[in-house]
């Protein structure tokens, strides 16, 4: 559920025909003064943050003069409101309010329909009102595939006692509200309060809207940075992670940070889950042992090795983690060696220095565990791998044993990637490079056997594509990473698979 800021939501409902107060979005105190000048005093300064109850948390101020505006804007910009940093303020005309209403919609999972709600008791405390006096809120279930009729809006209004002129004025607002919510595929939307001014106009004094993440591709004009459920703006690492997910439809990769600005030794663990239910249980197992989690990460739905590799790189970019814990559902239907290879490439390239426990239970887990074991000399930290018969609690216990006296090697093997490239082909999200001079000297040619899709074959004694280049680029090469890993373990180190992560290298540099 991607959240929209108040000003974004107001743009949507204003476009649909609902009046909103005159306002401007600003991000400096100077801009605030200029905006107030144009709007006219008195004005309201409203912090643009994704929380309810802004007023009581110091997120809303009133100003009568330019000095007031400057002082408030200076104080509010950059401040925290319920833990969220304020980057933008909405400067808005102050309304003369006569009465406040509530108009909202959400999706009812029982009826499997959107439901609209209307109450004459808007403003703060609407949830308590709903619990105490449920009858004071009119509800109406809606057809997801059509607008509502005026008589439907009228009936909702009369059910909460709104008649006459007010009823007439509110009908088009209710119709427009649902039309906007439907158009933008809102998971929830609300105008609270919907105010009637003393001169009889109805205006949306606030607007909160969440948009379905999976429909974001149909609404790219809405300025949603990350179509994910975040209760705060995304961190730079989260933005990088989302870039990976947005560019690769295979499987699911979800990442968010839970602890930031921590030091080594604070017991903060990099977490890598697979599947929601198993991830939650695995996180619980760590939390019960007193660890903190640097992040939540889920790679599931049969992601390719390349996606798991990128996820692991993102987790390892949190430099001060004390351990790496990967644990999913335990009995996965997906073949676990894809994840194992992704982890191995990331751990080897990064020189994993935090002890790791990897629980890859399910299909082909023995192959997965064997892969992790075979490459264990390529990073300095100890790593233990487990399968479906080992519980998350047991694996968390193993991690704590490893962390008690971390046995970090001072010497370890590194991948010796070729420095020159004589042949390469593109894959869905990267590129496979070969140094055929090295390949010519390779006796084993393990890359050929390793390629499960059989898209590599020996031509003139060196590995080349057995299929058309564009077929490989469109996904026949599944980026399973097997050729590269086997080449470095058993062959003559002639392959390098480039899987760029946009933004991560800059991030590391800063």
């Amino acid at each position, binding site marked *: 559920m991607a959240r929209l800021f108040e000003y974004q939501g107001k743009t949507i409902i204003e476009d649909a025909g609902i009046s909103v107060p005159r306002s401007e979005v600003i991000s400096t105190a100077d801009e605030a003064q200029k905006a107030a000048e144009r709007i006219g005093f008195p004005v309201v300064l409203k912090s643009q943050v994704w929380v309810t109850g802004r007023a009581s948390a110091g997120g809303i101020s009133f100003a009568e003069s330019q000095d007031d505006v400057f002082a408030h804007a200076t104080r509010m910009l950059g401040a925290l409101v319920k833990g969220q940093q304020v980057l933008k303020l909405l400067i808005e005309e102050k309304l003369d309010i006569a009465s406040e209403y509530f108009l*909202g919609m959400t999706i009812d999972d029982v009826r499997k329909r959107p439901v609209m709600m209307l109450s004459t008791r808007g403003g703060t405390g609407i949830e308590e009102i709903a619990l105490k006096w449920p009858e004071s809120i009119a509800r109406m279930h809606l057809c997801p595939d059509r607008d509502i009729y005026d008589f439907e809006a009228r009936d909702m209004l009369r059910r909460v006692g709104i008649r006459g002129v007010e009823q007439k004025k509110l009908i088009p607002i209710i119709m427009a509200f649902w039309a906007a919510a439907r158009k933008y595929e809102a998971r929830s939307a609300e105008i*609270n309060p919907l105010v009637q001014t003393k001169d009889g106009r109805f205006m949306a004094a606030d607007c909160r809207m969440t948009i379905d993440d999976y429909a974001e591709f149909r609404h790219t004009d809405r300025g949603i940075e990350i179509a994910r459920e975040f209760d705060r703006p995304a961190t730079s690492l989260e933005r990088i992670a989302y870039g990976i997910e947005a560019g690769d439809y295979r499987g699911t990769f979800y990442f968010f940070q839970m602890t930031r600005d921590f030091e080594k030794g604070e017991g903060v663990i990099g977490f890598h889950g697979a599947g929601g*239910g198993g991830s939650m249980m695995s996180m619980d197992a760590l939390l019960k042992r007193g660890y903190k989690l640097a992040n939540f990460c889920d790679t599931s739905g049969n992601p390719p090795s390349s996606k798991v590799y990128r996820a692991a790189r993102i987790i390892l970019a949190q430099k001060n983690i004390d351990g790496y814990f990967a644990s999913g559902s335990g009995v996965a239907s997906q073949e676990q060696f894809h994840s194992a290879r992704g982890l191995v490439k990331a751990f080897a390239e990064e020189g994993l220095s935090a002890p790791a426990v990897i629980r890859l239970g399910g299909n082909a887990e023995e192959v997965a565990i064997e892969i992790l074991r075979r490459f264990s000399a390529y990073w300095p930290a100890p790593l233990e791998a487990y399968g479906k018969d080992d519980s998350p609690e047991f694996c968390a216990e193993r991690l704590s044993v490893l962390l008690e006296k971390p046995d970090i090697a001072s010497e370890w093997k590194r991948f010796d990637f070729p420095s020159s490239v004589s042949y390469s082909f593109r894959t869905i999200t990267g590129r496979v490079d070969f140094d055929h001079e090295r390949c010519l000297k390779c006796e084993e040619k393990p890359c050929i056997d390793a390629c499960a899709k059989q898209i590599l074959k020996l031509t003139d004694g060196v590995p080349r594509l057995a299929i058309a280049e564009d077929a490989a680029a469109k996904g026949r090469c599944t980026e399973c990473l097997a050729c590269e890993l086997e080449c470095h373990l058993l062959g003559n180190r002639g392959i390098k698979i480039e899987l760029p992560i946009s933004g991560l290298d800059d991030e590391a540099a800063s």
Partner: protein
Amino acid sequence: MSILIDETKRVLVQGITGREGMVRTKLMLDYGTKVLAGVSPGKAGEIVHGLPVYDTVVEAIERESHFDLSVIFVPGPYVKNAAFEAILAGIPLVVLIPDRVPIYDVLAVSELASEHNARFIGPNTLGVMSPERALMGMIGGRSRFVRENFQRGPVGVVSRSGGITTSIAYYLNKIGIGQTTIMHVGGDPIIGINLAQAVELFQEDDETKAVVMFGEIGSTQEEQVASLISDGKFNKPLVAFIGGAAAKHGMRFSHAGAIIEQGRGTHESKVKALQEAGCFVVENFGEIPEITRDVLRTL
């Protein structure tokens, strides 16, 4: 018996030539599922794992006679169209495997399904398996793995998490308790057959003696199950585990959701509702097999 899927059900695969469609069709066939044909626009005439591919669902029905269900493996944005095609062609059960299906698309599928007396499972589901009979979707994996680890028996399993569905079944099997059917209802907020409706199906199934359910925070599905039991519509023993006890509550953004949920949807409310309805709510996931065994012994 079993619910939803067995070896007699005639299965169509939509999106059979895609990455997952192709792989999963093979695994379904290997396990004995009666997959008879596939649909992939523009690919009529191709053969996938020995099965004919047709351009449309109607064409598949014209050539192969009726289907009991269709399993859909097309990317999320195209799922609505594929589901509409199956429902309008008269297929009574549609399984939406993919994730990332827009929620308004799911609502539209739900409306159409009700109009046509069809049912759907998912989206974002691993699928359904009736051990030693048949499976649909991505559940289980390689047929050898499935044969070794999942056996027929008296327990129905239903879960909101895909991986946990197979985990529960595996750990039950380890102490010798097999299953009639194991079902992942799907991980999305709006889904077709939900926990409560699955539990009702298990009520109708004579072979199912008890049900194990994995619930999660969010939505009101577990509370709906509790209501079913209180209303006498489900009277078999139910062992439940609710995940997410330690999950931190997201800062609320919308009042609208809270008004509709009225305090339901939390870990506490789900556990309380199920306990009051007489379910065996276990605190540790690892206790599920033994508690289930004890429950079966009392029958």
